[in-house]
């Protein structure tokens, strides 16, 4: 088990500003001290090393990814293993479905040397956080700029950290506005709302006419989804979190951002959303809309396929319309970028890395992306696929919302300390939505907190 835990190799790959501190007692060498102690636990009768995951020189490697609730992923892995039989073997290790839990688990894995996992399917906000600590293989040579143009720009950019690229975009996600086409028509609206103001007007009218319980539900809880939602308001009002040219400058405390949060808060103040929207995640919002108890819903593309399912849904798919999110006063509509990328673990064997990269090329090929769209309703990251009718049929939601939505999707702030920032943003955005703090107060606090994180980050590691 001790095979690939050499601290020096890790040290060499840590090429950037995080080249850390003076005394280089790596954790691993300290941890070895403790190993002897725990070896005692082996007395409990355990046969030693079980061989683990990674490559054993026979093209075997391990692929980690959260459990795919559509069930399509094991099929993809199976196809790979058949196609490359005798050459590579991919072992799929299911990770927690919950993205937050998956992240925590991966972190522990990396902390332990990480050599058991070779290919990682990860959230679009992870690359900077893992790359900065030297956990991911730099793929700039294997995935040159000339090849990147065929992918959607947002997902590609999400893999770039300090000029190098650490992953390939696998499938994408973007926030969309779902609406009740039938109810809107009954109230005389032929078009979905173009701006947040229009959304409120329509919601109020439709609620009055139809007696629907809620006008609009979205994810306002203090968690990652709440951050994405709030940022959609901030971005569409022209606000930013970090300076685009200098990621070490925090610019979140701006009138634009405040206007954005004010608009989000006004959903509650104007009676369009319930007060409890500040506690909602996807889990709460979706059933409300699918039960027919809300006129509008902000959700991810997958929700559309559930709308047709009588098991989960009271309303019919025909009653549901999909549109880009409403725009701010400047006419700008911004969707939060979601989705998943594929990375290679810097601590795995070179052979396993090779095999893993083949697997990544396989998954991101147009053939397999098409298949995943059809079997798992995942949105492809290859632009060309959006011109194919069979793909559009598989994910009709995109045709409805317009492919432009995907082009406009904006990532969350890129930072090695995103986890810390996200915790702060989640709390402050939620406080503003809740009414505990005014948007200005929340942003002022957030500005200070984010600045502190950046400063602390520079001190700890630079």
């Amino acid at each position, binding site marked *: *088990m001790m095979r690939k835990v050499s601290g020096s190799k890790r040290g060499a790959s840590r090429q950037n500003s995080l080249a850390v501190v003076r005394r280089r007692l790596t954790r691993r060498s300290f941890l070895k001290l403790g190993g002897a*102690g*725990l070896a005692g636990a082996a007395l409990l009768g355990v046969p030693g090393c079980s061989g683990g995951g990674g490559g054993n020189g026979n093209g075997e490697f391990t692929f980690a990814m959260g459990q795919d*609730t*559509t069930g399509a992923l094991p099929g993809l892995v199976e196809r790979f293993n058949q196609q490359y039989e005798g050459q590579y073997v991919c072992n799929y290790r299911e990770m*927690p479905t919950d993205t937050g839990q998956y992240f925590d*688990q991966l972190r522990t894995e990396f*902390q332990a*040397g990480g050599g058991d996992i070779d290919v990682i399917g990860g959230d679009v906000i992870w690359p900077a956080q893992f790359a900065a600590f030297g956990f991911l293989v730099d793929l700039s040579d294997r995935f040159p700029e000339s090849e990147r143009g065929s992918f959607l720009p947002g997902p590609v950019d999400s893999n770039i950290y300090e000029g190098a690229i650490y992953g390939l975009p696998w499938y994408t996600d973007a926030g969309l506005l779902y609406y009740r086409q039938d109810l809107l028509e009954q109230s005389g609206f032929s078009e979905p709302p173009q701006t947040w103001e229009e959304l409120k007007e329509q919601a109020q009218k439709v609620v009055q006419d139809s007696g629907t319980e809620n006008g609009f539900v979205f994810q306002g809880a203090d968690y990652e989804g709440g951050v994405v939602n709030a940022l959609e308001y901030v971005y569409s009002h022209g606000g930013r979190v970090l300076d685009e040219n200098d990621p070490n400058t925090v610019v979140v405390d701006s009138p634009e951002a405040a206007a954005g949060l004010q608009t989000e808060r006004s959903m509650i103040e104007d009676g369009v959303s319930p007060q409890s929207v500040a506690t909602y995640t996807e889990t709460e919002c979706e059933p409300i809309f699918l039960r027919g108890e809300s006129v509008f819903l902000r959700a991810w593309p997958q929700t559309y396929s559930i709308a047709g399912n009588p098991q989960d849904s009271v309303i019919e798919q025909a009653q549901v319309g999909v549109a880009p999110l409403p725009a701010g006063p400047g006419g700008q509509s911004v969707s939060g970028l979601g989705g998943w990328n594929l990375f290679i673990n810097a601590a795995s064997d070179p052979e396993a890395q090779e095999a893993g990269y083949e697997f990544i090329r396989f998954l991101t090929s147009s053939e397999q992306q098409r298949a995943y769209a059809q079997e798992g309703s995942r949105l492809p990251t290859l632009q060309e696929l959006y011109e194919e009718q069979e793909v559009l049929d598989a994910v009709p939601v995109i045709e409805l919302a317009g492919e432009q939505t995907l082009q406009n999707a904006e990532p969350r702030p890129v930072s090695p300390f995103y986890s810390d920032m996200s915790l702060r943003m989640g709390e402050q955005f939620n406080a503003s939505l809740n009414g505990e703090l005014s948007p200005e107060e929340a942003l002022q606090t957030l500005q200070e907190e984010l600045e502190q994180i950046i400063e602390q980050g520079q001190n700890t590691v630079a």
Partner: protein
Amino acid sequence: MSAASASTGRGGTLNSALFYVFLVVFVLVSVFPLVWIFKMSIVTKAELFESPPTILPNTPTAASYGTIFADPSFQKALINSTIIAGVTTVICLFFGSIAAYAIARLRFRFKSIVMTLILAISFFPAVAIIAPLFIQFRRIGIIDTYLAAIVPDVVFALPLTIWILVAFFKELPFDLEEAAKIDGATTIQAFRMVIVPLAAPGVFTTAILTFIFAWNEFLFANTFLFDDNTQPVTVVIPNFATVYTVDYGAQAAAAVVVTVPLVIMVLIFQRRIVSGLTAGAVKG
């Protein structure tokens, strides 16, 4: 043995009526969530989310139970939970009762230090131990085996086991043991022949508590066990989800399936506990 038989005396019917009211309220409060969750497990998804909630299910359905039992990982998880909790309990009781006996009955100098050391593990937040343990478990190669959950479960349950058993053992009539020793029995024999039978109820109570403790453990299992072959129910149940929504019906059904056996087990064994306790109150 009915020590505080207050209600049978002067208090009369009013007291005993109050007594039963108290009991009924208490039982209702205890059981209500299980009943409610049972209700959640037999309604349709639409009804599950109805507001205001229905009290009695409109159209009972076993669909949620169908979902969980169609899932092979759930059955495997039940087996895994039983193995992990069972082995943990056996190990804890074996080492725990030996240690507790020594602490309760034998004279030696460093007793307080030993007790404090044992207790010390209960001072430390389990969340902080995870990462170092993960690294060590990987090194000795028990990650993703039952042992990876059993070892920390034992360590965190042992202090409780030992302390409870010490408290029990100290109350036992050890004059009998002395008598046995005078009759020529060794310390170990005295322990086995005299103390073990008398201590059975206390040990049994401890066993139940340890078993439930291990059965309910989530954090270690969630961190150290990766797949269906080893994961217990506490890890598997929260993962019953459809594409983006959590399947609450299936979770509720699974919660019922996981809890009912424990309740039945307690129902069966509580007679033994009671009778054991009765026997324990030996006169003189």
